[in-house]
């Protein structure tokens, strides 16, 4: 992939992006109410608390839904590829990509596990793969 549009980390998200360089997928947990959230924010969306700390995700989830993109939005992407919503075992749902799977293997509620895709600036993007995929 060329001409990647790179994320610009901010005051809240810099530790999250730094951790991806070591292959760690972090989630925010609220010290007051234990709510787990992703993407990272300045505030807990369950109790409005601001005491949030980082925990590492187990990297397990299920596909909430998915779509195969057949026409890339820019030259940075090569179609086809799979965009998905994955619900993590810790609770939050995230947008991601499913890699290394045939379309016929995909389904809602399918278990998936964490993998990584490198960005050109040294950060990594958490993606997911189908457990026991025929492609692996």
């Amino acid at each position, binding site marked *: 992939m060329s001409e990647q*549009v790179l994320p610009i980390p901010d005051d809240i998200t810099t530790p999250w992006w730094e951790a991806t360089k070591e292959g760690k997928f972090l989630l925010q947990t609220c010290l007051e109410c234990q709510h787990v959230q992703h993407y990272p924010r300045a505030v807990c969306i369950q109790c409005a608390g601001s005491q949030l700390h980082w925990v590492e995700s187990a990297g397990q989830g299920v596909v*909430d*839904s998915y779509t*195969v993109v*057949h*026409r890339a939005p820019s030259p940075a992407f090569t179609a086809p590829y799979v965009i998905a919503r994955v619900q993590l075992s810790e609770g939050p*749902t995230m*947008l991601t990509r499913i890699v290394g799977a045939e379309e016929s293997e995909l389904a809602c509620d399918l278990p998936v596990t964490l993998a990584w895709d490198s960005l050109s600036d040294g950060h990594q993007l958490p993606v997911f793969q189908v457990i026991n995929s025929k492609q692996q």
Partner: protein
Amino acid sequence: MSANTAIVGAAESDLGVTNASILTLQSQAITRALADAGLSLSDVDGLATSGVSRFSATQVADYLGIQPSWSDSTFAGGSAYEMYIARASQAIAAGQASTIVISFASNQRSARSRSLGGVVETHTPEAQFESPYGPLFPLSYYAMAAQRYMHDYGATRADLAQVAVLAREWALLNPKAFRYDAGPLTVDEVLAAPMMSSPLTTADCCLVTDGGGAVVVTSLERARDLAKPPVQILGYGESTTNTSMSQVPLLPTGAVASGKAAFSLAGLSPSDVDVVALYDSFTITVLLSLEALGFCEPGEAASLVASDRVRPGGDIPLNTSGGGLSYCHPGQYGVLLLVEAVRQLRGEAGARQVSNPQVALAHGTGGILSTHATVLLGVDR
């Protein structure tokens, strides 16, 4: 309890491929809607619009040489125009304005200004946590909603396609429709169209056209003295749910809340509605909205859309203009839902006219199922 306000003028700008500027099309829509009401620009003291520039209402006011005492440029995608009906009614009730124009126009087809990936604003969480994956925006979100809907209810791509087939059927009755001369559409043609973001093909997606429209809102009392029979604003409701693709469940949508609020304010139920105008950015949008608004139970929208009930002569005539799928979709379609509802209630809809409708529903959906706004309109009684 109704809002004691009414729509007294409604019009489209030129539609399709216009080679005109946004402000030319805005001017057409606004002056035509005012003429329809028997009013002129000098009567306008309120203006609601978006999609023009950063200062949209201010921009249009400047262009038309007016200085309104009330304006609104709430930017919420295609449902903003249904939201403006609520705000305009409230502003009139509060005495802040007496004659409010709600307008939108776009030249997106002529200007080729639309991109598959949407607009990425680098300071937003989506730019960091979603855009790097390369979703089509808004299409991939609707595609995931469709995939989940099919999984949960056993619906098929052919069920989605029926929405596009229905839209075409109505468009063949509307000389203003982009697909007026295109002939009927079949399920097989929708299924065979190029896949964009599965399960949605190009034929599951709305048109990309130029176009626009405007409606004029005033008090019901004053409306009764104007050129055309008033179309009463009976109720409205809205819900704002998400900008990201990940933070709320795909189903059901915020249309549940917006519909409940609108029906409650109007003291009506879905069975009271005689003509239905739903935002059809994509085929799936219509199925989700029919269920969320209470026209059928969850999972039953596909069989409803395939039935005669939503077709000419049926008891739930649906998207009678031909919709965003076959009539016109200028990027934000919401104002054109209102224009069609007004025409139907006045009996001005020509070959597609519904028989003697008393109540119409217009439901806007903005962004990625992000904003939902429902308006109930009725013949003055």
